[in-house]
């Protein structure tokens, strides 16, 4: 990236990309924008690694007997897919790239509060990723991303400890990001930027950070205990000496349920930015959206037991967790309806980011309402650990979070690089992804209801038709993801010069040149109006 020669028109001002050159200037940078890009590159790599595993899985599942690999290998594939996608792609995706880039800019600050910790966070991420990737290279891990003992602690013969170490380290990188955001949002807002003038992107990241700092330590210590158990046969989760394997599940989901909101809340933040900008309207129900983010963050810690309805958890605890799971759905519903209402009487354009945004709203809804099936006790008994669950979370994580991520990348791409991407291609890719996605994952709902268990390398023949459909969809989806990779890379060099505010968007980040200078703003901005004041758009133009 540092060697990219930039066209004169961008060269005219000094910005964070051309202020210094060379590998060292990147690897030792403390500029939040450059760190965001370091993350962007590494996360994209991890996405394609995880995605390749998914492609192999889908190819394998075309035939009931499993056409491609041995069951042992298949097990390693979904484990590596799950671990990489969750811990190394989706959790850091929006916060560590777009969040890193934008949080200080949206606040009118020069950088995050602790720039060196921010860089350290990226290094921790990389070390974690290297551990996990070497676990894979050394032969893989086959425990599932949930790492349930006693299988993971006593029976699996694979490289559990190395992978666990990777997750442990990556956990601290996530904590550091959240930590930095919270302090920055509290202490470094520009003059006049009161809480209720903040962009909703910031509220979403604030809620996310709360989860990161309070949840992640628990999974870190849990995974450390698991590793100790495996190494030294302590017996903590081993029923033979009175240990309780279900305790692990409690500790694991105490983090991992809130973690799913780490994955979706930032996406919701992106949504609020995109929908307002491309319908040129102030967001409908600002404070409801803002507070629903906080409500989700708090409630998310009270529902983890819904992953354990049939594991031997007390039925009474199940009852409480079920009720609370329904409650956590309400704030999400509020958000969806408020976005819809924002579109009403807007001035809606179909730029690529908006296409992703509209896709998000619909697909997230579908994933969300099927989450309600799962929080219904009796229904979960049947669909737990079937493809219904797989479909549920891919609808939210791929249909929701990844769509939001792509939407956000396209939206802020001109700000990040100073150049536009080819618009036609972008819209085309959005469409391909939408179609491929539905074809991949809708059949999985049906498979799940019919009773096909997840993590099956071999399955009864009656499930084949739906599996073939799903595999076909996955290849469309995979191609859909390749297109942006190509044209975005291309546009870094050949794209049209974008100018400071190609979308006529509101928000402090659009008031500074693209790409922004290292210090973000020539002088600290003073904020005098509320967010999304789109009625003023015409005047500037």
């Amino acid at each position, binding site marked *: 990236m540092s060697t990219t020669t930039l066209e004169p028109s961008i060269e005219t001002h*000094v910005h964070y990309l051309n*202020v*210094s050159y060379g590998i060292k*200037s990147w690897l030792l940078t403390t500029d939040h924008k450059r760190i965001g890009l370091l993350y962007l590159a590494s996360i994209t790599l991890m996405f394609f690694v995880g995605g390749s595993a998914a492609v192999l899985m889908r190819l394998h599942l075309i035939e009931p007997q499993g056409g491609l690999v041995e069951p042992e290998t298949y097990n390693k594939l979904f484990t590596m897919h799950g671990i990489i996608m969750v811990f190394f792609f989706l959790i850091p995706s929006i916060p560590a790239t777009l969040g890193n880039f934008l949080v*200080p800019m949206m606040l009118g*600050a*020069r*950088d*995050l*509060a*602790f*720039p060196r910790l921010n860089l350290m966070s990226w290094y921790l991420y990389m070390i974690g990723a290297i551990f996990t990737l070497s676990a894979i290279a050394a032969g893989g891990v086959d425990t599932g991303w949930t790492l349930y003992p006693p299988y993971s602690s006593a029976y699996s013969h694979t490289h559990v400890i190395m992978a666990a170490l990777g997750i442990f380290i990556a956990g601290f990188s996530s*904590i550091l990001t959240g*930590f930095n955001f*919270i*302090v*920055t949002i*509290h*202490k*470094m807002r520009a003059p006049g930027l009161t809480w209720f003038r903040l962009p909703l992107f910031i509220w979403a990241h604030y809620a996310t950070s709360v989860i990161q*700092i*309070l*949840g*992640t*330590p*628990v999974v*870190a*210590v*849990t995974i450390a*205990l698991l590793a*100790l158990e495996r*190494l*030294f*046969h*302590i*017996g*903590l989760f081993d029923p*033979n*000496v*009175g*240990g*309780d394997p279900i*305790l692990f599940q*409690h*500790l694991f989901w*105490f983090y991992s349920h809130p973690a799913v909101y780490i994955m979706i809340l930032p996406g919701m933040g992106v949504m609020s930015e995109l929908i307002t900008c491309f319908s040129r309207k102030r967001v409908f129900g600002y404070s409801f959206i803002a507070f629903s983010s906080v409500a989700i963050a708090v409630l998310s810690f009270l529902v983890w037991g819904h992953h354990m309805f049939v594991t031997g958890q007390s039925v009474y605890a199940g009852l409480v967790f079920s009720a609370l799971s329904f409650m956590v759905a309400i704030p999400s519903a509020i958000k969806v309806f408020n976005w819809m209402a924002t579109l009403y009487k807007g001035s809606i354009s179909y730029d690529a980011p908006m296409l992703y945004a509209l896709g998000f709203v619909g697909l997230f809804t579908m994933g969300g309402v099927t989450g309600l099936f799962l929080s219904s006790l009796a229904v979960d008994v049947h669909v737990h650990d079937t493809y219904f669950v797989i479909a549920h979370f891919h609808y939210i994580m791929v249909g929701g979070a990844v769509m939001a991520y792509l939407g956000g990348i396209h939206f802020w791409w001109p700000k990040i690089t100073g150049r536009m991407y080819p618009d036609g291609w972008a819209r085309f890719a959005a469409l391909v992804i939408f179609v491929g996605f539905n074809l991949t994952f809708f059949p999985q709902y049906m498979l799940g209801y019919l009773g096909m268990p997840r993590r099956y390398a071999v399955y009864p023949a009656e499930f084949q038709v739906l599996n073939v459909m799903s595999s076909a969809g996955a290849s469309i989806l995979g191609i859909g993801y390749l297109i942006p990779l190509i044209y975005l890379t291309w546009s870094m060099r050949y794209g049209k010069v974008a100018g400071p505010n190609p979308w006529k968007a509101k928000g402090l980040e659009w008031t500074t040149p693209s790409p922004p200078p*290292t*210090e973000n703003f020539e002088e*600290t901005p003073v904020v005098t109006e509320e967010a999304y004041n789109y009625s003023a758009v015409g005047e500037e133009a």
Partner: protein
Amino acid sequence: MAEHQAQSAVMDPLAHQFDDLQQQHEASNFGMWIFLATEVMFFGGMFAGYTIYRHEYFTAFAAGSHLLNWKFGATNTAVLICSSLTMALAVHAAQTGKRKALVTFLILTILLGMAFLGIKFTFEWSRDWNENLIPGELIAGHPFAPQGEILKQLQEAHAGLPQVELFMFFYFALTGFHALHMVVGIGLLTVLTVMAWQGRFSPERFNPVEGSGLYWHFVDIVWIFLFPLLYLIGGIS
């Protein structure tokens, strides 16, 4: 530009992202508190496990607790409280700009911290090692295998050995992580002492002293819970 930044970092205690010292101070203080909240949750995971097993195997946990010597536990509690006092006084000295007092109190704190670790290692853990009370195969070739008097004591208490082993695991995990925090703390304080000696702190700028103080007190608080929860289960005689 970068050079300018690097330069200003040395000359000027104000980092470039902050507007003024006040903001920088507040950010670092608040950051420390947030960090401590994550620490609470870190220990919290272990406490949750502890609580559950203590509830399920109370007899064994009480018997295991009786294998520990509460006198060392109590002494160490007192030592840590003393060190918290000296730490608080060190911060006070920094606030009021008394360089000598600051250095003295920091050194005292370090010495007390080392005393704590010394007692832990020499009187407690080494005995556990000699009596084969180290759980699991934490140390190769040295499995958990209580013998002689201790074994009899456990049998008389009708405690299942595997459950006592669980207790010992929590004992080592919790005190071990605690000791690790102490070691880190001592390292931090050593750096601070040198800096204080060089006169790098002033009533305008003592964030590092304050932050390390908070950390040190937190470690003390953890021990305040560990003492009754590990040493005093089921009463002492």
